[in-house]
């Protein structure tokens, strides 16, 4: 039971990160109907940029809590800015010129962009994984059990609390933007009928760009959290995390934002429980098995939109 609880906490932490990335996939799909396969690498850019910033600020676990919070806030803003510039540029350079061409073209272009980003960072930063000392340290013991097999303590670390709390806050803010603001309304309008949106005075190109920027901000935040959770990052982290977040988006119902959040949590939990109870070596297989199963048996996903509409 204690073991289970511990895995639950770990799973929710990982699921938060996947969920944040998954939103970027699902929003872009919703608005332009394509998978931005470079999105995982935008997450990677966010992660590597955060890493560089944290190092250059000289941040360590020994810095005072006030300094850490202030520095991290600065890091996250800059990482979001840089990731946004990348994602905005990707859309302008690689996708926009291909709008309206055959369906496979932007997909190929997306994979190309993904390779460009990875190789760029690999060459610029050298290929070795970048480890760092833990910055946010400390944990709370929630439960303790001693029995004949020994002692087991359920803990939640400050880092896990930070990830889960920030994710919940970001997702709440994000949901409010989509459902309650004129920007969100414009995005939903473009998702449903771009031509009609433009007849009503919506600048569709601008709305699409903003969507890429919003996805990039969430991915950059996830990138920072990811590297601070594992205390390591490199040019390749975007690949696996990207595919898993993509799986989360498909599982939740591609195009659905609550679906992406839910899917992220499910994938995070499955991965952690799989590692805990079956095999760590095959943990990535779990996510891909889910992807294959969902695509075959439930392509509309958990919260996917029903296709039926009265016209």
């Amino acid at each position, binding site marked *: 039971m204690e073991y289970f609880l511990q895995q639950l906490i770990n799973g929710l932490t990982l699921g938060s990160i996947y969920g944040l990335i998954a939103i970027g996939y699902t929003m872009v799909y919703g608005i332009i109907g394509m998978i931005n396969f470079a999105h995982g690498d935008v997450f990677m850019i966010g992660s590597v940029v955060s890493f560089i910033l944290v190092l250059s600020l000289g941040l360590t676990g020994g810095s005072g809590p006030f300094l850490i919070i202030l520095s991290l806030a600065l890091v996250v803003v800059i990482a979001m800015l840089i990731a946004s510039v990348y994602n905005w540029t990707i859309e302008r350079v690689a996708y926009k010129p291909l709008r309206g061409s055959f369906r496979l073209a932007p997909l190929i272009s997306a994979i190309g962009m993904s390779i460009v980003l990875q190789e760029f960072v690999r060459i610029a930063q050298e290929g070795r994984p970048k480890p760092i000392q833990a910055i946010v340290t400390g944990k709370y013991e929630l439960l303790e059990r001693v029995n004949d097999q020994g002692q087991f303590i359920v803990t939640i670390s400050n880092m896990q609390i930070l990830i889960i709390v920030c994710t919940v806050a970001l997702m709440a803010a994000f949901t409010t933007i989509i459902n309650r603001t004129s920007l969100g309304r414009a995005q939903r*309008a473009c998702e*449903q009928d771009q031509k009609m949106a433009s007849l009503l005075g919506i600048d*569709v190109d601008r709305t699409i760009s903003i969507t890429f920027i919003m996805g990039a901000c969430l991915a950059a935040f996830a990138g920072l959290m990811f590297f601070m959770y594992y205390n390591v990052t490199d040019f390749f982290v975007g690949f696996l995390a990207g595919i898993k977040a993509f799986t989360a988006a498909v599982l939740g119902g591609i195009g659905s934002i609550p679906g992406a959040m839910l899917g992220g949590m499910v994938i995070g939990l499955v991965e952690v429980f799989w590692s805990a109870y079956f095999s760590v070596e095959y943990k990535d297989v779990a996510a891909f098995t889910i992807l294959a199963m969902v695509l075959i048996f439930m392509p509309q996903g958990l919260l996917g939109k029903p296709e039926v509409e009265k016209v």
Partner: protein
Amino acid sequence: MSEALLTGRGVETFYGKIQALRGIDFDVRKGEIATLIGSNGAGKSTLMMTIFGTPRARSGTITFEGKDITKLPSHQIARLGIAQSPEGRRIFPRMTVLENLQMGATVNDMAFFEEDVAKIYKLFPILEKRHTQRAGTLSGGEQQMLAIGRALMARPKLLLLDEPSLGLAPIIVRSIFSAIKELNEKEGLTVFLVEQNAFHALKLAHRAYVMVNGKITMTGTGKELLARPEVRAAYLEGGH
């Protein structure tokens, strides 16, 4: 009722190699109801969309208030004060009725929203009853009212209406046409109305055009065209 609000000269539009508009000239003057009638496939909807630059005219010019809008992006044309209730209504099905009306107020950044939405509800009371309902679940007539209401939310100087009566019961058609007439008479709204339901449209119109195969073949006042035997034969047979 003198200065031209919207004019087109020699407008030609293509879909790939197929030419849909073959050199169209038209004028819509301030304060009037102009109508364009023609059988299915004549190019009426193409003209309505060409005014908004989607598809774009390959040649010719369209001016609005004397300004050349032929090459302007669609969203900027909307911001000049033209609104359209397009063919097929194109309401946003997964938004509520209220949200659809909010979308209509995009061009004036919601500045007059409360005031205007009250007016729309007075014009089409059913929309108020349905305001939290998803627009995709409305009946055809309700969707048409929503499409017109959404266009009016922009406070347009010119309203383009593409077949507002299509597929609707006669009683709803009558209420929609009387709403159009009222808006024109009381608010001085300029309307460019496309209809296959030629009888209603011609009765309403100060100026009328007949389109055949991408060309304007007849022009006159609504009454004049209504009196012409060839119009009656082609567009009013079995009429109302």
